[in-house]
């Protein structure tokens, strides 16, 4: 059974007014437990609206979201339980920090779940460890941290709820290259250890190529493609048409392929190297 499934999911902003706009239009997808899904799409393609329906922040105009086979809006009063199961990290999550200490802020989510004090502290500490926040930072005010540390503290605040599905909306936006790499590998290792489902929204095709099992492409409120990462990025011309691009190395290899070299779609430099080295040793002949 898929962990998240949508059936004809549609969301219209400002329905019944002249400004109404359908942001998500009849989306049917299913996501399996333990997958790492990359979600890409042009600005305004409906990505954010889609993911906000997964944890019940937005109520679908029509259609349903099934979590473990159950409609999340079956009991609207219990929607908070859905939000604990589907954790959501917004863009620039550091803007949501408010507590006196970093530890207290991370503990806000688990505290709302009604857990006992020991369990809350255990979860907060382990979440902080996952994102690489050292113990001495936990007693500081969140407003004293650096930008990257704030970001991690905010992500830890969601991880601490131990959600079955973790949705991250552009977690690396505005970080320096090293900060991006570190945060991304922390997310991957978190995913590997907890075996939970992760949905990663990103504008960085390199990040998506490196991490995702499957990629969901949104274009003007509809699902354009939803397939394995290799398959999606082999559609490079289609992606470019809707204002997206494939990773640089994927592009180079696809150009080589179109020129007749015996190579196939790659996602990372390492994969490209594996294909190019034997080719070079043969002197770069096209039909070796």
């Amino acid at each position, binding site marked *: 059974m898929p962990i998240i499934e949508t059936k004809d999911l549609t969301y219209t902003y400002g329905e019944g007014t002249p400004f109404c706009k359908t942001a998500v239009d009849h989306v049917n997808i299913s996501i399996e437990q333990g997958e790492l899904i990359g979600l890409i799409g042009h600005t305004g393609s409906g990505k954010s609206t889609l993911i906000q329906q997964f*944890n019940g*922040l937005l109520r679908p105009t029509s259609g349903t979201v099934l979590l473990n086979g159950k409609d999340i809006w079956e009991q609207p009063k219990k929607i908070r339980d859905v*939000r604990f199961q589907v954790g*959501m990290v917004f863009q620039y999550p550091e*803007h*949501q920090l*408010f507590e006196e200490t970093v530890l207290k802020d991370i503990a806000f989510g688990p505290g*709302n779940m009604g857990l006992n004090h020991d369990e809350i502290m255990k979860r907060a500490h382990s979440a902080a460890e996952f994102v690489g926040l050292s113990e001495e930072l936990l007693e500081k005010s969140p407003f004293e941290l650096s930008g990257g540390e704030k970001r991690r503290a905010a992500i830890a*605040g*969601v991880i601490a709820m131990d959600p079955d599905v973790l949705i991250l909306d552009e977690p690396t936006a505005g970080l320096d290259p090293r900060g991006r790499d570190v945060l991304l590998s922390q997310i991957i290792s978190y995913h590997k250890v907890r075996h939970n489902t992760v949905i990663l929204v990103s504008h960085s095709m390199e990040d998506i190529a490196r991490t995702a099992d499957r990629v969901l492409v949104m274009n003007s409120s509809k699902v354009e493609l939803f397939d394995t990462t290799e398959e999606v990025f082999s559609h490079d011309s289609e992606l470019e048409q809707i204002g997206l691009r494939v990773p640089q190395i994927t592009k180079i290899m696809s150009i080589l392929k179109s020129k007749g070299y015996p190579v196939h779609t790659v996602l990372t430099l390492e994969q490209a190297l594996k294909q190019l080295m034997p080719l070079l040793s043969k002197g770069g002949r096209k039909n070796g």
Partner: protein
Amino acid sequence: MVRDITLGQYFPGKSLIHRLDPRVKIALTFVYIIFIFIASNFQSLFLMVALIFGILLLSGVPLMQYFKSLKAILFVVVFTSVLNLFYGGGHVVWSWGFVQITDGGISNAIFITIRIISLILFSSVLTFTTSPTELTDALERLMKPLKVLHVKVHEIAMMMTIALRFVPTLLEETDKIMSAQKARGADMESGGLMQRIHALIPILIPLFVSSFRRAYDLAMAMECRCYHGGEGRTKMRVLHATPRDAVAIVCTAVVCAAVVFCVVYFPAAIR
């Protein structure tokens, strides 16, 4: 939701009312408000109501929007009219113990309700049809004489522009922060009064922090562009009065004269 607040929102358009000189609009709104209080009987108030309806239709803003802005002050209207029910002379219509309602009271309540509603409608027309920039620009111009008294007219106008400019931004920000805290299980819909107040802390603190951040950024950006106050500053769009404005002034004068006539000729409604 917070986004439903329409009081003081601008609806772009090209109607006759939109194109009036903002200075004239402000001045006339001021006059209308004074005349709503001068109108002391139903005959004169009817003239004001007819005027406001004419203006509403001319403004081209959906009537639904005006209705929404009235909804925001529904409580005030109901409260004052209920209170007025019990004051007033005339025949007793209904009584219960020492509480009694007279026909005078009923007429007072209706009168006050119409007054408050027209008051709100007149000011809504101004804010719905005048962009915040135009509004502050006109205010700055109208307040210029106060410079003699060392009132910092330009600075006041600039502060108003900035405040108005940031209303939608802050609303959006509030929405975002609320979503983020709800995603962490913040419960804002249930619990007693104290719990609800407590539930606002996770929203207010990030909101304050981001307002300060925005203020610093804006101050920096203004200084980078050499902003140094109103001294010697020119306007990109200079306000010009047109024949249109003269017509508006004349119409207003006619209605106001009629109101004064009614007030003198008919008895007052409030008893």
